[in-house]
């Protein structure tokens, strides 16, 4: 028993040391990547795209909607107001049971049209395609389909209807910045390799002031759960993904917002409608597709905040979200286990997936076992408290330091909050993340793993919406 305790302690230490090393490397490279991206792409290029529409690649913005009557109009208004010369908006009504479709039809004068629907990727049947009789809304297409149970199925219908070579995958609960499309397309243009996907920073809309689908003021949420998530999201995008992007090793382009190459998505078979982590699943399959066809590719992450999403406002909704993410992550490794440590898939197989397995998937398990182990040591009086507090401080400082680094990167990219005290608030709140918020995330992730292993039937489920109009209300 003593030997097990001894070995386990060292394993935990080296695990934490490995995480530390990886995060520090990512933070280091992310710093330069953020700096270089700011230099490479500026308002001049964006203005040129708007001034010369003949040179601006057309983009489809695809957003599935299921029971989103509270926010659908705000969202569609936000999308139709994007400042870009060539784009369309495709809303996929995924068999909503509420008034989502009726609201859209009333607001935008929609009628069903004859549409030569070609199923390039599999999805549940499309009942009809609607367009507006008002020329003002010529960019809008609404796809009405039978519910497929997951966002992935709805996305596939959107991909089948989208007419352009690149599409944005976003959610209806997301508000996009007006300059989203000019910013997101620049990395695609400025590359000699095929850029198969581009990700950007997502933030919480909770707390922001919104008018007619446009964010007029960015503010942190006033409730704790969304504030914790704000820092968590920023850490994921500005440190982790910007760091990975420096090595062309982005593991996942978020399903909440990302630009994708449509031909590659179709070639890879479209979104997996059975997947609960359709974003990471799609990213991996696109990479595998390019590898299988011996084609060079790039996945880029840009640091700009382009998408605001309504985050779970309370623990109940957070639990639903994180358990779904947990199910999705375990499902990824179950479905794509052939990529793991497979040299054929290059750095995806040898670096990205092993990292995701050991330091993202295993992390909640390691932490939970560590907690049980701690209880055991306490009960058997085997704790060396000096060492214990030192190790705890070390692990605590990893999170807190990464959080403050994240906040500094966010401020360096662009000052989103009006007052610098809002940034100080994020720093202050992040000092409590490890104590208040993170344990719940661990428990909910483990719950997700358990749900997947016991094969419970899952539905996409309805997010409890607060709505965006005026100030996003914090209940």
């Amino acid at each position: 028993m003593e030997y097990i305790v001894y070995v386990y302690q060292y394993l935990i230490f080296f695990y934490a040391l490995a995480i530390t090393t990886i995060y520090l490397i990512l933070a280091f490279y992310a710093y330069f990547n953020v700096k270089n991206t700011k230099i490479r792409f500026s308002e001049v290029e964006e203005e040129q795209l708007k001034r010369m529409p003949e040179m601006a690649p057309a983009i489809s913005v695809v957003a599935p909607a299921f029971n989103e009557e509270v926010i659908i109009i705000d969202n569609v208004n936000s999308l139709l107001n994007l400042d870009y010369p060539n784009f369309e908006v495709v809303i996929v009504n995924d068999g909503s049971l509420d008034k989502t479709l009726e609201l859209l039809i009333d607001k935008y004068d929609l009628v069903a049209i004859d549409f030569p629907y070609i199923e390039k990727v599999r999805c549940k049947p499309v009942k009809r395609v609607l367009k507006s009789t008002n020329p003002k809304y010529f960019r809008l297409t609404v796809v009405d389909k039978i519910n497929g149970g997951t966002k992935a199925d709805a996305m596939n219908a959107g991909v089948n209807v989208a007419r352009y070579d690149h599409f944005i995958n976003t959610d209806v609960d997301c508000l996009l910045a007006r300059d989203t499309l000019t910013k997101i397309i620049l990395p695609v243009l400025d590359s000699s390799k095929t850029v198969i996907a581009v990700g950007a920073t997502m933030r919480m809309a909770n707390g922001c002031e919104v008018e007619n689908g446009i964010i007029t003021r960015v503010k942190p949420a006033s409730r704790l759960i969304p504030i914790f998530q704000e820092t968590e999201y920023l850490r994921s995008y500005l440190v982790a993904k910007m760091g990975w992007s420096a090595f062309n090793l982005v593991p996942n382009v978020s399903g909440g917002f990302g630009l994708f190459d449509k031909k590659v998505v179709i070639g890879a078979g479209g979104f997996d409608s059975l997947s609960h982590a359709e974003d990471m699943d799609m990213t991996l399959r696109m990479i595998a597709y390019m590898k299988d066809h011996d084609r060079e590719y790039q996945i880029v992450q840009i640091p700009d905040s382009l998408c605001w999403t309504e985050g779970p406002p309370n623990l109940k909704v957070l639990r639903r979200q994180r358990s779904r993410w947990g199910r999705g992550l375990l499902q990824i490794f179950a479905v794509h286990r052939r990529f793991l440590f497979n040299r054929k898939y290059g750095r995806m197989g040898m670096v990205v997936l092993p990292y995701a397995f050991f330091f993202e998937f295993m992390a909640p398990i390691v932490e939970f076992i560590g907690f049980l182990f701690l209880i055991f040591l306490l009960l058997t009086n085997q704790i060396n408290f000096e060492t214990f507090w030192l190790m705890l401080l070390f692990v605590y400082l990893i999170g807190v330091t990464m959080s403050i680094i994240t906040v500094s990167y966010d401020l360096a990219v662009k000052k989103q909050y009006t007052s610098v005290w809002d940034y100080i608030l994020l720093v202050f709140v992040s000092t409590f993340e490890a104590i208040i918020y993170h344990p719940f995330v661990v428990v909910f992730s483990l719950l997700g793993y358990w749900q997947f292993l016991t094969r419970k039937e899952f539905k996409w489920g309805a997010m409890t919406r607060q709505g965006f109009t005026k100030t996003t209300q914090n209940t």
Partner: protein
Amino acid sequence: MSTLKYYYYYLDSEFIGYPAIIRITVFLVLLFIFIYFLTLLRIGYISFRLRQGKRREQRVEDKYGDKIFSLLVEDSSASVNTRPTSEDLKEMASLSDWEKIIITQKLLDLRELHAEKFNEDNFRTIVDLVGLNVFWENQLTHSDYGTVKNAVRKLEAIDDKGSGVMVRKVAQRNNSFARKIAKSAYMNLSSMDGLDYLDNDFDRKFNALDELRIHNSLLKRQAEKPLQPLVRWVLNSKNVQFQVFLIKEIAYFDQVDAAEVLLEYFSETYSSEVKAEIARTLGHLKYKDAVQKLQTEYHYVRSTVQLAIVEYMGLIGTRKALEFLVAEQKKVQSSELQIEMIRNIYRIEGAEGMVYKELMQNASSDFNKSIFNFVEKDEQETEYIIATSKE
């Protein structure tokens, strides 16, 4: 340094005898604490710089704003836009670097906001008297690429042809980003032949963003005098993407004289992308002599080229083109190609055309029937978009 050494040895002595794991952990804890406070300082510094930037802008606006406005914007109430002398601008004789940066932006913003009333001569005089072009040319030698890029952009915006030589030096740097920005700026600034970069495919790392920059330059040149024929660069290039881009530009700038040469090149090139773009361009140039050849080639090329040939036929709109589309439409296997064929038949004949109507009546499946209504609505929408964008 000796202080650091002192503290290092002190800490080391405190933990003598402890396992390596403890010593490593102590080191990491101290490292994190150091990074934490350093980052806190960085946050403070960034917010200080942002506030300082705003204050400086306000100071420049308060000190020089009215004077600059009165000199540059015609019909302003302050003066009658007399040519400024060094005496008029003596308070601007010894500006600091940050003032020059802000004033340059102020001048350019005024030019954009009041384009019709802007006094260009006075603008040039102010730039010379204050030494702004010399300042930005000096910035070109900076090692930081962000500073160099900003300097190139400002010189390009100031549009002083004399700066072309200095900008060209930046185009010889190893950093591809700085090099390409400088090349495209040189194309705009050069008083001689600024298109010589096109001889070498513009840049060894040519990409779609360079297309945007070159197109911008070509537009400016076209506004001054007719462009040289771009086809010679198409024929001499080995870079397929570059060729495709130039062929598109030939269509955009309506260089009809290039049509015959392009048709000949269609047979010579092996690249499907180039063939497809040639077919589309010949359609935009309304080059009817290509109909026979493209109809023959249609059956031996890839689907991307077939799509382009179909588009060509729609743009040409001759009887032969229509007959070709009708004949091929009956045999086509690909749904996408079928939709494009019907679209181009509609473009030639319109909804009231006999052939179009007959095809619609004979459409066998629901899918085939839906294509006609969809194509009509889509084309009407496209016409609306074109009409509104012209407004």
